[in-house]
C-alpha cells in the first residue's frame, strides 16, 4: 500500500484541532458499550500508523496485516484494562510492537542505533568546519503543489531505505505526531537514542529533498 499526499493540507490541521485523545477516548467508551461501528471507526483512525509500524518489524505486508489484526483482537480482549494512564494510541502501539516482536521475524535484528553517517557529507565543509558547498534554496519551492507531490514520493521512497529504527522513530514522530516521550514508550528506547535516531532519519530525508529539488 503506497503513501499518498493528502490532497487538502488544511484538513490535516483541522483534524488536529480537536485533541486526538478525546476522540479516541470517546470511541473506546462506545466500543466498551458494545458499539460495532465505533470499533470500525477506531480501527480506521489508527490503521495506517499501525500498518506502517508493523511493516518495519516484519518481512511482508501480509504478515504486517496479520500483526495488526492480532493486535486489535488483543485490544478488544484487554479493553477494560485500558486505564487511560497513557494515550490510547501509545497503549495501542505498545501492544502492536510487542506482537510484532513476538512474531520473531526480525527479532535478532540489531538494537544498534543505526549508521553513524554524518548529517551532511563531510566534503561539503572546509577544514575549519564552515560550509564550502552550502545548502541550496528550496524551501519556498517545496510549497509548490506539483513539486510537493513529487517530493512526497521522494520522502516515501527514502523512508523505506532508512534503517528500521530510524524509520520507526521518524514515522511515529513526524507522520503520526507522537511526542518524543510517547515514542520512547512505544519502542522502549531512551530519550537520547530517540533523538539520535530522529536526527539521522530526518537528516537523510532532508538530503533526499535537497537532491530531488536540485536535480
Amino acid at each position, binding site marked *: 500500500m503506497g503513501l499518498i499526499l493528502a490532497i487538502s493540507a488544511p484538513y490535516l490541521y483541522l483534524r488536529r484541532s480537536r485533541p486526538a485523545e478525546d476522540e479516541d477516548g470517546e470511541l473506546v467508551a462506545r466500543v466498551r458499550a458494545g458499539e460495532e461501528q465505533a470499533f470500525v471507526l477506531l*480501527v480506521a483512525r489508527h490503521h495506517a500508523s499501525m500498518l506502517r509500524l508493523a511493516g518495519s518489524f516484519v518481512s511482508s505486508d501480509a504478515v504486517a496485516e496479520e500483526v495488526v489484526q492480532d493486535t486489535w483482537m488483543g485490544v478488544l480482549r484487554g479493553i477494560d484494562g485500558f486505564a487511560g494512564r497513557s494515550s490510547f494510541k501509545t497503549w495501542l502501539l505498545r501492544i502492536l510492537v510487542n506482537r510484532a516482536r513476538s512474531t520473531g521475524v526480525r527479532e535478532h535484528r540489531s538494537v544498534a542505533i543505526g549508521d553513524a553517517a554524518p548529517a*551532511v557529507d563531510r566534503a561539503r*565543509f572546509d577544514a575549519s568546519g564552515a560550509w564550502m558547498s552550502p545548502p541550496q534554496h528550496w524551501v519556498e519551492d517545496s510549497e509548490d503543489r506539483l513539486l510537493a507531490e513529487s517530493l512526497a514520493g521522494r520522502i516515501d521512497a527514502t523512508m523505506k531505505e532508512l534503517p528500521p529504527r530510524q524509520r520507526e522513530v521518524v514515522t511515529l514522530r513526524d507522520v503520526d505526531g507522537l511526542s518524543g516521550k510517547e515514542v520512547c514508550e512505544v519502542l522502549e528506547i531512551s530519550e537520547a537514542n530517540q533523538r539520535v535516531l530522529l536526527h539521522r532519519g530526518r537528516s537523510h530525508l532532508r538530503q533526499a529533498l535537497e537532491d530531488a529539488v536540485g536535480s
Partner: protein
Amino acid sequence: MLGQKKPLVCQQIVELITDYLEGALPRSQRRRFEAHLADCEHCTEYLEQMRATIRLTGRLAREDLTPEMREEFTALYRRWREEGD
C-alpha cells in the same frame, strides 16, 4: 573543559540541530547555537530545510480502510463478541 567557549562551526550545527529543535540543548549550548545562526545564512537556511522536511513528512498519509478491510474488522469484532457469550 578547554575550548568550551569556542564558537560552534557549521559542521557542528548540522549535528546539533535535532537536539535544538527538541529543546534538548543545555542553555549555554543553545546560546552558542543561536549565536552561530544569527551570523550564518547557510545554517539558517539549513534549519529552515529541516523544518520543511518535518512539515512535508507530516503530510504523508495513507488511504482509508477499504470496504473489504471494514468487513474484516467488523467480523473480527463479532468474533470477539461471541467469545464473551
